[in-house]
């Protein structure tokens, strides 16, 4: 008799194509029929640069840039969520899907979220940087793979020859 385990799977999404692939991969493969898993989509907004109003002498209309930035961010979140929705809408009836948005440095927020949510598994795409970019920018997926306590799946762009 198989026990139906309930598992919490976190998928980290951002604006890149690869994370949408990671999302569709995990929907295809990690949710067999009859399982009771929860999928949590986690999107991390980059930290809002703080404009100190004290030295805003140069900004005559100081309120507007901040408001425009927030609006841009909001739209970004909406677009990412809309894209993910097109990916998971076929599965919506079978699986519980949660969406969460975080703000800050992507790798740390992802690690904290995984701990807080007590996720059983983390799925991420990878930007697939080359050697130098990786050395300079650092890889979110590698950082998280080292830090989180749960298993991590790193999904790359599939070569389309299978």
């Amino acid at each position, binding site marked *: 008799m*198989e026990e139906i*385990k309930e*598992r919490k799977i976190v998928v980290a999404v951002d604006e890149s194509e690869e994370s949408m692939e*990671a999302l569709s*991969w995990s929907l*295809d*493969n*990690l949710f*067999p*029929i*009859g*399982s009771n898993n929860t999928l949590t989509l986690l999107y991390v907004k980059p930290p809002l640069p703080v404009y100190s109003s004290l030295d805003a002498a140069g900004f005559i209309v100081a309120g507007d840039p901040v408001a425009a930035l927030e609006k841009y961010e909001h739209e970004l979140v909406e677009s990412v969520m809309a894209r993910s929705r097109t990916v998971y809408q*076929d599965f919506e009836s079978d699986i519980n899907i949660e969406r969460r948005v975080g703000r800050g440095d992507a790798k740390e927020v992802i690690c904290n979220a995984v701990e807080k949510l*007590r996720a*059983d*598994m983390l799925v991420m795409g*990878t930007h697939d940087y080359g050697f130098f970019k990786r050395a300079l920018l650092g890889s979110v*997926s*590698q950082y998280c*793979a*080292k830090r*989180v*306590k*749960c*298993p*991590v*799946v*790193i*999904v*790359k762009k*599939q*070569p389309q020859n*299978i």
Partner: protein
Amino acid sequence: METYVDAIGAGDTAATTTTSGAGDTAAKMMETATAAKPIKKKLKVMVAIDESKNSFYALEWAVEHLRDVISAEPETNQEGGLLTLVHVHPTYLQYIYPTGGTDSVPESMRKAREENTTKLFTRALEICRGKMVKTETMIIEGDAKEMICQAVEQTHVDLLVVGSRGLGMIKRALLGSVSDYCAQHAKCPILIVRPPKETSTSKQ
């Protein structure tokens, strides 16, 4: 690089395939059914093992959690997925020739290594037994990280599972991490299983 493959079917629906050739022909024979929406495709999963405890933990985790996606369901009469266990030998042993010794010393080293490997696979297969999963084993010689990635390419698996040695930053930079290398270079998605920390409070 020499590869020899024993294919062992576990579970009543599995047919045992005996291959004497390269491992990729066996894996290619496992054509999974093309996915119509309600029928999900079964996965071909490869697990890299060595003597470390972490890789065995990764294997156990993989069998436990991926069982649903790999195992065959007799009711739907669908082809099951495939679990491939791959072990990579470092080749350095071949270059050790004692001066004045006879040929028997490399021989006995090779035999010892084979025994080691057999023991390893026996343990691994114990874990997979009874889980209704078609299991295959592969033994490769060479540099672990490159060979694993090559094996992934050759056998077209859907998922690679590796343990992680949990090296710190410096050791990782010096020794090189197999899981890091595979995460960057393997052609398929990779699942990195970290060992549970015994000292931290566990959630169960």
